[in-house]
């Protein structure tokens, strides 16, 4: 007598529960999206052009109307980040692609940037809910996606013949290539205001000592020598990250030794120097550097309220949009080392397009990725988003109206040995707390040696999580 009732109760319980769970699921993903638009892209220096920390994050209008298509038409979906540039680039690519392949429809979906975005992507992969194609970082972040299990091996796709090897290595794991480049490279270095330089008779520094000398002269003249925007904590890492060219110039095997747990920041003098350089900048920053944001920093730079801003070259895109008249006043140089003979640029590789391994539409997805990685694709992207450096696809050129500040960077690329990829593209080991540590260094709260040791401890977690040998 009581048995059927019990069964009924269990059944109804389960039914109720699954409803609840479903509600929870959708609710939490919405929250993730909302929360992210308020928080800054905290790991943005590691995000190549795929997730540019552009000013206002455009609101995602994902998967709009896509019903009632003719049967033979296949719909695939694309996930890109919600930055202004990210959305515009994805949309332009989709429009051009759909015009070329009228039988394939691409739905656009957006995700938050920075670490929220990292979790978004990881969660979708873990739950088997990933879009057919998604744009995401190359380098250390891509290594953390468990590519062998989640991503389609694209080593033998024909388009790879046109992709530069320097990029391929950043999306390769155990000899297999998993991605195709989206967008252009970026340089990490120092923006400077040319008007202030001209006014004080300064010249572009070739050594770190000269740079600090300039800083002193600017400060003595009563102006703000350096712009700090530590409210967006990721911006505080730039001096340390952009110093990698100088690290590898002195210690060519650092990346390999670092990955194998044989070299440490604290005990390698060339690497420790990166933290020391930031320590030397203490006191040169604008008064509100702890409360200023990335956008405010760009504004200060353009308006000549600060002379130097260590930043990634993709900032040019936002500068062009917000201060088009002042773009000519802004120049760019690589972060100098201690010797004038070794002066080169640290380069960030573009993000990549990946195909989800379990996608039901692999062929269509491949066609889309092939289009993205073609010169046709780069031409489409160049129209909506200012390239922040050369493309990594053979034959792809920069548009003629590229501003001078980007052209300042090109000589580094034209001579061999004048560029080096940032460490995160050479080693999967990158600690999550670097931005907090560099905030402390830049605000004089922590000494360089101490900070380097702390960071060494921080990266240990990442290496262990990835299961690297030797940790």
């Amino acid at each position, binding site marked *: 007598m*009581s048995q059927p*009732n*019990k069964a009924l*109760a*269990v059944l*109804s*319980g*389960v039914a*109720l*529960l699954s409803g*609840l*769970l479903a509600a929870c699921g959708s609710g939490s993903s919405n929250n993730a999206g909302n*929360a992210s638009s*308020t*928080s800054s892209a*905290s790991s943005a220096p590691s995000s190549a052009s795929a997730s540019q920390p552009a000013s206002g994050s455009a609101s995602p209008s994902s998967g709009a109307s896509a019903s009632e298509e003719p049967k033979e038409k296949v719909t695939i979906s694309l996930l890109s980040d919600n930055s202004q540039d990210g959305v515009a680039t994805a949309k332009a690519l989709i429009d051009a692609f759909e015009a070329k392949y009228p039988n394939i429809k691409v739905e656009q979906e957006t995700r938050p940037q920075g*670490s*929220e975005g*990292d*979790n978004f992507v*990881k*969660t979708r*992969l*873990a739950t088997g809910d990933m879009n057919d194609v998604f744009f995401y970082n190359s380098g250390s972040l891509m290594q*953390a996606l*468990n590519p062998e*299990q989640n991503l389609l091996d694209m080593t033998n796709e024909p388009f790879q013949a046109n992709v530069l090897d320097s990029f391929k290595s950043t999306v390769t794991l155990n000899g297999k290539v998993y991605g195709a480049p989206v967008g252009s490279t970026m340089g990490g270095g120092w923006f400077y205001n040319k008007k202030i330089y001209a006014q004080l008779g300064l010249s572009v520094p070739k050594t770190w000592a000269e740079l600090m000398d300039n800083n002193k002269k600017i400060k003595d003249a009563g102006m703000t020598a350096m712009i700090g925007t*530590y409210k967006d*904590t990721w911006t505080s890492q730039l001096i340390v990250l952009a110093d990698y060219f100088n690290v590898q110039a002195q210690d060519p095997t650092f990346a390999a030794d670092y990955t194998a747990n044989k070299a440490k920041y604290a005990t390698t003098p060339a690497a420790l120097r990166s933290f020391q350089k930031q320590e030397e900048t203490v006191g040169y920053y604008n*008064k*509100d550097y*702890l*409360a200023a944001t990335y956008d405010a920093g760009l504004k200060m730079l353009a308006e000549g309220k600060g002379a130097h801003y260590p930043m990634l070259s993709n900032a040019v895109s936002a500068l062009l949009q917000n201060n088009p008249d002042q773009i000519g006043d802004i120049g760019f140089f690589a972060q100098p080392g201690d010797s004038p003979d070794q002066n080169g640029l640290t380069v960030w590789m573009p993000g990549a397009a990946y195909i989800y391994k379990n996608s039901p539409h692999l062929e269509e997805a491949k066609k889309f990725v092939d289009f993205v990685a073609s010169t046709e694709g780069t031409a489409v992207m160049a129209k909506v988003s200012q390239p922040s450096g050369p493309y990594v696809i053979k034959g792809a050129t920069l548009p003629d109206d590229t501003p001078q500040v980007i052209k300042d960077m090109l000589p580094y690329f034209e001579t061999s040995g004048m560029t080096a990829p940032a460490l995160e593209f050479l080693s999967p080991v990158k600690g*999550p*707390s670097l931005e*907090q*540590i560099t*905030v*402390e260094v830049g*605000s004089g*709260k*922590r000494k360089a040696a101490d900070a380097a040791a*702390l960071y060494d*401890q*921080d990266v*240990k*977690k*990442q290496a*262990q*999580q990835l*299961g690297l040998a030797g940790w």
Partner: protein
Amino acid sequence: MTKVFKRIYTYKFLLPAAIVYIVIFIVPTVMSFFFSLTRWTLQDWDFIGLQNFRTFFEEPSLTIGFKNTLIYAAVTSSMKVVFGLLLGVFLTGKIRTKSYLRSVVFFPTLVSTIAVGIAFSMMMHPTMGLLNQALAQLGIEGPDWLGDTRIALLSVAFVDIWKGVGLATVIFIAGIMAIPEEYHEALQIDGGNAWNKFWNIIVPLSRPATNAVIILSFIGGLRSFDLIWSMTKGGPGFATDVIASIIYKQYQGGFYGLATAGNVILFLFVTAIVYPLSRYLTRTEVDL
């Protein structure tokens, strides 16, 4: 037989709620104890024993985190008691516009914490913020509320108090109204003044309300995360990190096992503090 049947009878009604509770609360809790012992990528896991707990306790910001968590919980809950009680007394007094003032005091509780956090972090901007501009009008140079590592945590605690005092006030109003009229009459006969009324009647007899406020706001303070995250993200550096924000950062870094271990620690930490506290407070309550 019928006896057994009768005993089971009530449990059948309990079943739907119990299932929901078990699947949504008990199962994840037990699972989290398990996953805290693993290195977890959401897709697969390695059992690594207590390694996560070791790593979490080696976390450099953890000492700051524990200290900040306790300071934050103590400051917010004590201030909520003080201001909540004073406002409660004021709003149960003989004033006009009482109900209007009550809703004014309660209003901040209704606003989204994140929105409050963003609004206050703008107002606390050192040069362009409303607070410092107002101070500048008076000729005072205001501090960098959220940038100065010495006061950043207190600035956030202040906002938490502003936002939470409404709820504390409502609890106190209820507590004060529940004090029987006889005590006030006795006071009048004995010729006590307003201070006697406050100190000898209201404070001791609203003890259950005080305890509720202390417990609620202390637990809230120990677990607090949203306001801190929206205002400082634990910064500058690690200066305003609390345990919850440290855990969140581990989760953001993709260290799911480690973050779960952190949550287990937080759970034990909160229990270890709140359980004896609540036992102590309920023992000292007086009967009306």
